[in-house]
């Protein structure tokens, strides 16, 4: 009918978003890629070095230290968090809990807390001398320290899981609520018990949201920055270095070390890596979500 008019309308709809997107994302990314081709020196200014920064990056043990750390962290924390979120969603959906409204709100609340506040709270709570752990240690005679170089990542994992489980739980819960009740009734009539229903109906219903939450959790966790950065001024001897995660390393390179080109190269490499992982998960997960 008026398809060309429809097409133009379509463009008009996305135009405001696109213009801002260009300004806020495309141009800066382009500029970032441009910067990554230069070496910055305090004396002597900037000089074009082609892909040297990237070559240097792959030889940089500090980069690998941080990269391996976040990848391992992600590989452990994301499954724990998502499994907890799923378990919670299933528990709430089972209608077998007292006070589900309260539980939903309580579990979701951590998501609303800003990172600075959350890290402060956990930093104090986990303090070995005067926090909760300190008192537990005194009571039980142990001397567990949640902020040693060996345990700091666990503590950070506790913080990150705390912050995001509720959010993921709600996504799963919403997916569960969308399952038509008749499916349950039909299954029950056929003799299925509750566990069977969970396995055959509820879990498959979560597959779609699981793929989405996995992707976004991986993306977010690989970018770990706020918690370690704020913790450095709160706790001693935690093992947090200036290259603890790739994002922290990039930040210190750019601001403390005045090596913006190198920092840009690092950030772009991490971006490509993250996109690749997200793409792989999506391929292996659901195909039809993105085919619409």
């Amino acid at each position, binding site marked *: 009918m008026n398809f060309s008019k429809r*097409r133009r309308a379509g463009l008009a709809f996305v135009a405001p978003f696109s213009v*801002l997107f260009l300004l806020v*994302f495309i141009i800066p990314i382009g500029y970032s890629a441009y910067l990554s081709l230069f070496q910055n020196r305090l004396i002597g200014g900037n000089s074009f070095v082609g892909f040297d920064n990237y070559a240097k990056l792959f030889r940089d043990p500090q980069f690998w230290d941080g990269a391996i750390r976040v990848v391992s962290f992600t590989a452990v924390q994301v499954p724990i968090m998502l499994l907890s979120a799923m378990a919670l969603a299933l528990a709430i959906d089972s209608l077998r809990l007292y006070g589900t409204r309260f539980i939903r709100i309580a579990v979701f609340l951590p998501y609303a*807390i800003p990172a600075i506040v959350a890290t402060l709270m956990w930093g104090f709570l986990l303090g070995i001398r005067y926090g909760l752990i300190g008192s537990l240690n005194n009571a039980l005679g142990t001397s567990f320290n949640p902020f040693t170089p060996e345990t700091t990542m666990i503590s950070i994992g506790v913080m990150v899981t705390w912050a995001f489980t509720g959010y993921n739980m709600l996504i799963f819960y919403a997916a569960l609520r969308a399952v038509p009740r008749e499916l349950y009734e039909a299954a029950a009539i056929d003799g299925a018990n509750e566990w069977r229903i969970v396995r055959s109906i509820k879990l498959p219903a979560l597959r*779609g949201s699981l793929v989405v939450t996995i992707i976004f959790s991986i993306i977010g966790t690989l970018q770990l920055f706020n918690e370690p950065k704020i913790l450095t001024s709160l706790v001693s001897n935690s093992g947090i270095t200036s290259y603890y995660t790739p994002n922290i390393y990039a930040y210190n390179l750019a601001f403390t070390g005045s090596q913006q080109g190198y920092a840009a190269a690092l950030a772009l490499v991490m971006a490509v890596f993250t996109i690749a992982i997200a793409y792989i998960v999506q391929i292996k997960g659901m195909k039809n979500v993105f085919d619409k």
Partner: protein
Amino acid sequence: MSSTSSRARVAPLRTPRRPEGKKLHFLSSPKKSPVLTLVTGLFVVYCLLPLIWLVINSTKTQADFVSTFGLAFGDHFALWDNIVEVFTFQGGIFSRWLLNTVIYVVLGAGISTFLAALGGYALAKHDFVGKRVFLLTVLGSISVPGIALAIPQFLLFAQLGITNTPWAVLIPSFINPFGLFLMWVFSAQAVPDGLLEAARIDGAGEFRIFFTIAFPLLAPATVTVLLFSFVSIWNNYFLPLIMLKDPNWYPLTIGINQWNMLGSTAGNGALIQNLVITSSLLTIVPLVIAFLSLQRYWQSGLALGAIKD
């Protein structure tokens, strides 16, 4: 007859038979389990413990904070004093920070949600040149760490003369790729093509169709995106940190961070941990209120927007 019987196993029954007694009891009114509640309760404690810590310590004076146990109350109950001091410290800058944050959130969440709705709807219901590229780029942008963008954005905005102004914080907040994604998925599911076609046949223009038909249908998703955008902008930390150097334009997160750094950097910055904690409490109260009051909307929004297999 035969078609009905072959579908009898899974199809919804047109004449719902009353389920037999106990067999389906666990569906309609299952027995509450104290054990399950207890186990879930442990998780709830985990979630609420830091917040309880926050509330308790907001009632302590600075002296009490240094000398008492974390989860116990201090010798003096100073919540009101702390709140007053938060609002009067450094010439009342906290109120300014609060106002700034409200502005950033209202404008940022409002405009970004609107743009996401426009774009998501178009992705779902319209065809246009470069649609796939657009979608992939926007989704890919979520994976790009903020660090990669921060300095170039800063340099770009400096060229435009808007660093150290609220625009430097607002403009990036107008882009919400995840919101666009949600609106796209939701539009595809919740807006029937038939309705749109009927309106077109009646001669309505595309924008008119969007505003009068589609937008109301998108309400649960809109509220969800709005709310998550609200939280995200309220808690925005890294970008304002780089863009703003005038405390008069700081949002609350940067202000609190600055107060905290006063006492934790070498030198004679004031030690005002009690104010940092109390201001943190005050900062999250509006968020909590927003969430509690808009519960109904975002829970249904997430429900309808959920991806189904």
